[in-house]
């Protein structure tokens, strides 16, 4: 397996969907290639950063809906 193919199969590897034989080739390449190993780490960190920066636990979520929007929604319901 070449770096190019490794990059292609990254998503399936990360989600555990790579068939056993292909996973073996993938991991063999990974054990020899520091560059691909680094790329995998950063790919995983990218996914994680989305969840942390925008997910359920993010402190940046507006805790409250703006007051004027609450009023607008309730007023529109009566129209």
């Amino acid at each position, binding site marked *: 397996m*070449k770096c190019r193919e490794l990059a292609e199969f990254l998503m399936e590897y990360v989600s555990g969907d790579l068939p056993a034989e292909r996973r073996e080739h993938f991991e063999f390449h990974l054990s020899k290639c520091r*560059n691909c190993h*680094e790329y995998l780490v950063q790919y995983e960190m990218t996914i994680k950063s989305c969840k942390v*920066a*925008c997910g359920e636990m993010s*402190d940046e979520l507006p805790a409250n809906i703006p007051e004027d929007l609450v009023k607008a929604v309730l007023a529109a319901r009566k129209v």
Partner: protein
Amino acid sequence: MGSATSVDDEATLIAQLRAGDEAAYEQVVRLYGGRLLAVARRILGSDEDARDVVQDAFLNAFRSLGRFEGNAKLSTWLHRIAVNAALMKLRTRKRKPEQPIDTFLPSFLDDGHHEERFQSWEEPVDKALERAEIRELVRQQIDALPESYRTVLVLRDIEGLDTEETANMLGLSVNATKIRLHRARQALRTLLAPHLGRASS
């Protein structure tokens, strides 16, 4: 996500909504509105459009309360309605020409090796993400993704929809959805790298 404190509370709330209790409507808007606003903003990348979408989503939800089935959570049901409303808005909005995604994807030499040598990220990402400015940076870079890729990434990696649901909502095949998600993640990695790599710290 904000949610009614217990299943019983939620059942009571829904009964009140169905009975047309004005206070219950207001409670639902306050309880779930902030979260829906965030979802809409993430999909649309615009505050103003997000407000319109939240309003549409609530009105739509209130009108179809009769179709709400007790086995789903109210928060989940509202979330789906808001995601749909945001995607609908996206379709009606004038499309800006997208930057080709290839610019952000890794390139390879003829022998199949990566062209680029990846520098390890200076600081463990968990640690970096403890800082508000790094979280803000991640959000900015997500917004910078070409729209058709950003939507898939938001639905899959942030909103937690599965591939099939995402494909259905976007009118794509499962395979096309997978390809877009993989490319979106790769592109986001490229966009984050200059800020998280050694050179920046």
